[in-house]
């Protein structure tokens, strides 16, 4: 009996010493606290930054600014008449190209965008709640024995967090704009929904969303850093929303609201408001002017994000990467895959700045062509692009460009993909050039090409000319004098100046031009080499396009979202 008991104790001691004694009170309390928990968050003042940054992260996709991978891993341009996807056209792009966008055929990227925008909105709403007592939070979680240096850090924290709270309003407004330009009216959520909340918020109209955005900007524009670039102490925070970028957002929002799609009765006061909003950016003493270091350079590397760059209003930065180069270098360049090929429709629109040359159709063109598009017989990736039969980029080869062109804008040349070379990419969210064109368009509609009421220092024509002069002094003078003719000149100028900056598709929608333009085939050229080493270009249809009007002026909400809303969310017309 005694032996047995001893034995038993021995065995159980063994169990116990190996951590197995099940009677240990907290045995079932094992946790996996690799992630932050409410307890850890509550004592970490840095979360005032990290939760704040969460409202910006939807602008980034896999460490690249979102626009670089917006649709099927590449620019959104292939949905419009700017470009055609090479190789197999992915199904997301096809839905736009073939006009088959529908509630039950929403491309994954489009669906993700909806979710990501609301994720950004949720992060902003969450932050506004979370940071309510940030000053007290900052003070509580601070080593007070750090002397004066601690105080400086504390003051900086207070300042930066205070601005974050303003930025949360603007970020939210920005996401609502991105949603409304796609969907028209969307539900406005201004609080963090928890699981028990009734999520069935009904849809606000496009105008209501616009008014919400504008009122948020008007109310909170002064609780923002005015201009990060010119701030001596906080320059390193550039990339966040500022008063300058909030006003630029307002200019774009009001321009969209005044456009035919949203202003069918052509209410001139809407154009006047849009003109005024653009003017407020131009005359806001933000030190803005057009970058003179070259049109191509502006879109390459970190140029646009440098604090000395006077044109940039807000840019999304990213670490070095070669994803856009891998995606868009010609297939014949090791590591390239052709990607989105600019259309001849776009190329043909670049004006001549001299006499056309019959032996080289790309000669004497607006220099922005050579900065935007890789054409045949030009140098790219350290070699001459030869697209004729037997050439290095023979268009008969698999996965070459379908149009005869490759993308150049935003793409860094000579990145050695074979050695995994990379380049910095910067996405320009707002720039002065766009604001000038917004201004010119709104002024033309409100006051005509040459009208300017008191308080407006530039006419539409003058603003346009600033942009054209920067491109080339040789561009032909703009002679259009009627509002209509001048409008067409502006449309053309936007197409050229803002090519591949994710404006074209949305401009075509808001102008209600999509049903005309996006039902034209995408043109390309086939290249033949002449005996004298010149090239002949024959314009051909490279791909067809179908735009289903009027339905496709707005995206469809996914069928799933409609069902989940329990009838609160009404589908856009035509779907």
């Amino acid at each position, binding site marked *: 009996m005694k032996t047995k008991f001893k034995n038993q104790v021995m065995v159980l001691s063994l169990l116990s010493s190996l951590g197995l004694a099940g009677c240990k009170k907290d045995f079932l309390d094992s946790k996996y606290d690799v*992630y932050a928990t409410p307890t850890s968050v509550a004592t970490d003042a840095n979360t005032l930054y990290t939760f704040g940054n969460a409202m910006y*992260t939807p602008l980034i996709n896999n*460490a690249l600014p979102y626009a670089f991978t917006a649709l099927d891993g590449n620019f959104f341009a292939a949905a419009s008449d700017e470009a055609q996807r090479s190789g197999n056209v992915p199904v997301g792009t096809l839905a736009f190209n073939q006009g088959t966008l529908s509630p039950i055929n929403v491309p994954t990227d489009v669906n993700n965008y909806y979710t990501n925008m609301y994720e950004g909105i949720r992060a902003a709403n969450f932050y506004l709640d979370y940071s309510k007592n940030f000053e007290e939070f900052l003070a509580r979680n601070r080593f007070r024995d750090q002397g004066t240096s601690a105080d400086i850090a504390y003051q900086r924290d207070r300042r930066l967090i205070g601005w974050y709270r303003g930025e949360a309003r603007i970020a939210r407004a920005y996401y609502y704009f991105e949603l409304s330009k796609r969907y028209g009216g969307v539900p406005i959520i201004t609080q963090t929904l928890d699981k028990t909340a009734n999520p069935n918020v009904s849809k606000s109209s496009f105008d209501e969303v616009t008014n919400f955005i504008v009122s948020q900007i008007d109310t909170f524009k002064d609780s923002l850093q005015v201009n990060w670039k010119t701030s001596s102490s906080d320059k390193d*925070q550039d*990339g966040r929303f500022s008063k300058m970028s909030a006003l630029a957002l307002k200019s774009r929002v009001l321009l969209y609201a005044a456009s035919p799609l949203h202003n069918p009765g052509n209410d001139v006061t809407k154009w006047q408001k849009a003109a005024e909003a653009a003017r407020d950016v131009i005359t806001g003493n933000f030190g803005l002017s057009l970058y003179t270091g070259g049109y191509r350079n502006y879109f390459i590397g970190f140029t646009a994000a440098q*604090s000395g760059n006077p044109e940039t209003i807000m840019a999304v930065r990213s670490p070095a990467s070669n994803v856009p180069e891998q995606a868009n270098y010609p297939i014949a360049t090791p590591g390239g*895959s052709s990607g989105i090929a600019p259309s001849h429709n776009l190329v043909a629109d670049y004006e001549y700045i001299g006499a056309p040359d019959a032996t080289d159709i790309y000669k004497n063109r607006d220099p922005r062509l050579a900065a935007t598009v890789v054409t045949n017989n030009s140098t790219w990736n350290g070699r001459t692009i030869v697209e004729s039969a037997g050439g290095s980029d023979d268009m008969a080869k698999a996965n070459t460009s379908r149009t005869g062109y490759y993308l150049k804008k935003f793409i860094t040349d000579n990145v050695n993909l074979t050695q995994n070379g990379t380049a910095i990419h910067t996405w320009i969210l707002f720039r002065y050039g766009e604001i000038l064109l917004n201004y010119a368009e709104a002024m033309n509609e409100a006051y005509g090409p040459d009208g300017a009421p008191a308080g407006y220092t530039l006419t539409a024509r003058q603003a346009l000319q600033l942009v054209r002069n920067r491109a080339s002094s040789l561009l032909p003078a703009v002679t259009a004098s009627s509002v209509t003719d001048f409008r067409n000149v502006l449309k053309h100028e936007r197409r050229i100046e803002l090519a591949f900056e994710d404006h074209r598709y949305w401009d075509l929608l808001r102008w209600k031009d999509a049903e005309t333009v996006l039902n034209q085939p995408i043109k390309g050229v086939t290249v033949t080499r002449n005996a004298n080493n010149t090239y002949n270009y024959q314009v051909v249809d490279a791909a067809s396009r179908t735009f289903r009007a009027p339905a496709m002026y707005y995206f469809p909400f996914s069928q799933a979202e409609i069902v*989940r809303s329990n009838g609160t969310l009404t589908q856009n017309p035509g779907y």
Partner: protein
Amino acid sequence: MIKHHILKCVLAALALTGFAEIATAQNRQTANAQDTTATEAQPGRLFDVSKTRSTAAVSVANGTALSRNTSPNLTNSLFGLLPGLTVTQGSGEPGFDNALLNIRGIGSYGFLGGAGGYNTYKVFVDGYETNANYLRSFSPAEIDNIAVLKDAAALSTFGMRGANGVIYITTKRGVVGKSTISFQTRTGFQQAQNINKPLGSYDFANLYNQAISNDNGNVWRPFYSPAQLQAYQNGTGTNVDWYDAALRKRTPYTDGSLTFNGGDSISRYNIVLNYANQQGLYNVANTDATSNEMLKRYNIRTNLDFKLFKIFEVKLDLGGRLEDLRAPNYTNSSRSTSILWDDLARYPSNIYPVFDGNTNNYSGTTIYPNNPVASLNALGWTSSNSRIIQGNFNVKERLDFLTRGLYLTEGFSINSYGLSTYSKTANYARYFNGAVTTTNQTSPLRATGQNAAGQEDWKQGMVTLGYDRSLGDHQITSALNYHVSNYRGDGQYSFAYHYKNISGRANYAYKNRYVGEFGFSYFGSDAYAPGNRWGFYPAVSAGWIISNESFLTNSKIVGFLKLRGSVGKTGSGDTEGAGIPVSGLNGRFLYQQYYAGSGNYYLGDGSASSVGGLRPLFVANPNVFAEQSVKYNIGADINLFKRLDLTLDVYLDKRSNILSIDNTVPALYGNNIVISNLGKQTNKGFEATAVYRNRVGKVGYALSGLASYNSNRIDYFAEVGPAYSYNAQTGRSYGTPIGLISTGFYQISDFNADGTLKAGQAVPQFGRVQPGDLKYQDLDGNGQINNNDVTAIGKPGLPKLTYAFSGRIDYHNFDLSALLQGTSGSSVNILNLGSQTQAFVNNGNAYAIAQGAWAYYPDQGIDTRATATYPRLTTTTNDNNYRLSSFWIKSGNFLKIRNVELGYSFANQWISKARLTKLRLFVNATNPVTWSSLKKNYNIDPETQSGYPGLKFYTAGVLATFQ
């Protein structure tokens, strides 16, 4: 202090038992029954009872049966042996060849069946839990029997580990008597069961010309010139059979085991040494710089039993394994070479020769960067080495001096797993027409050190109080158990898993005719919120042994007849995998709010510096709890004429509280997932086994057949309400393919001159169609073909019916056995097979299936309009044709010969001088023949449809037993 604490625990455990008076027996205590088969013990947790007294649905196979199906992986030896277990062969790749195992089909969402994932069986070895990896590397020589526990009675003590069934293994123990030494080895070769080869260059190019012309608006515009075609035809053009270039026809396989067994009244032992060596199918030498894929495994198991001081019985079991896996360094993140098989399937024959020009440079292009031959020869090799040791220690004290039949056991188990990797890697530049084409550069062979790649340890302890006694007409066998499990790892489950299980069983038989059993588990898991961790899982069952009633005791027909039934509740606390994409947590601790990175944003004026974002990982749900299963089972065990054994079972399994993502939460929430116990599913089916044994003169034979049938239905799925009820998953079997119904091909007459569809036809919304495209049924009649026209178009991938026949005959010293196994009631979606079925898509390949494509080029003499069996070819994405539809759904039914074995045993008088008691030579064929329509029509194996093929083995071996 610690001792005091322990004492309290023990006392608490004893007090909890309450019925210490009633309790228990253990280990193969067999009841007193007349029938020989019925006196066999039926394995069960806590104690075994005789088959007569068992009220549970359990299938059992003994260790010797397992070695007939040659495979280094135990899961591939389970075909056709265990009714209720669906075994599906996967890849044959050494080390990655786990078969999918499902006990009684699909009870819950999920169709993984392997390690991880929902609906996963659990594995217990000698009473302690292990995992699927441990199961895989068992040698059959270590196993006494393997049981599948299926119903509520068999699973009553498993609590949250029980809902998906348990594979319960008992290892071999020493037998009192003369010492024996057994030696068995077999060696031979293995081959692919099936390889679906693509078309050669000539056929490929001809079809490509068709495809590109189709894309050109049906205007003939060939890509390959007649001269090129002729070159392909006469053999001067590039035409590489990549499978031939990369693979060998057959490669060697060897395994062997050595067993020492014996014992006396004080000590017994069984010691097994085992070795397996499997080479891969690749055509590459084993050198310092290159290696075939291979598996080498060494197992040692020592099971010892001691009796001490009359009251103690001690068991000490040690099972250790070393497994070395080596592969060409062209592997995915889990070190499988499956990516090479993707290339082999996708790379056309004419892309380039193995070597570029006349150089020694490997060919490669941007589109086809990984020359399969180079992937084997020029990248070096990689290896992983795993070590497992399981040690179990049990001590039993007989407390007969307190009350006869009372005993106490304490047990402790450690299970430790470690994985490390070692590689020698190189790289090569890809050339095409003399120029480097990709980002790779030639680099010399370089070794990487031994790197730890994961470890797990698992400690379990238990205390059992048992009582086992016969008193006149009354027999009672019972036990009460306290089990603690502490798992920790940094591999797949990179955190602790803790559970406690207080469970008990009591089996009571009256007059050997009426049996009742009660079992329960009170189970606590760390995955749930405090206060919400424990669940109670009771089960009751009963049996009526009719053959022991007076009116049947003298029957010549009925040797044994028992009816039994059970009902009870079990749980599944297994949220890992589960299709719940909560990274790193494997679905555990969902009650706790966690915050995780939302990605980086970048700020800066001179350069970009990253700043991290933080967001809630999911919406914490404090109410999350284990999935619940209520199981009903009715069965009968019958013996007729002393020759025919029948076992029949019918079951119903009602699941509820299946943990699922609530898909009904709108996206407005902002990407925040909500997980709750939402799902409901019903599963039902039957199992039947018949074994007939006889001997006629010198010929002895046995015939047996078994069938398992499972059918499930999703009762609630939290799916977003589809437009029509016929679109829904809910109400259908889990995994039912939902797609369009294809009704043939568009013909030229369906189109207007401008290429639009003539009026009156439903318009597909997946892009413009042209003649030869697939036509679909417009179910909702709205004039459009879209995703609202989808419905069930086939059956799930897991077969409903699994059946097997086997026979065994012996004559003189010869014996011959065969096992056939087949399935029925499953569908294969061949659209998922990439290049094999989607010709040219994504620069892919073309297979024979594409030769039936719809085409009409009268000038070229091509017209398959009337005979087409495949949509028109295209070189581009085609959202209309390559979309889940009934066109791509094929029957997965098959019948395979799993094994045939012929043996010759030398007569005793010849061998006894060499102290041999048995000497048997045998030849064995495993998986030699497959019958299936999928294979016949498309040359696709119904089980292993792509990737590394399933294997056939042809071996010869010897078994020798010395005494």
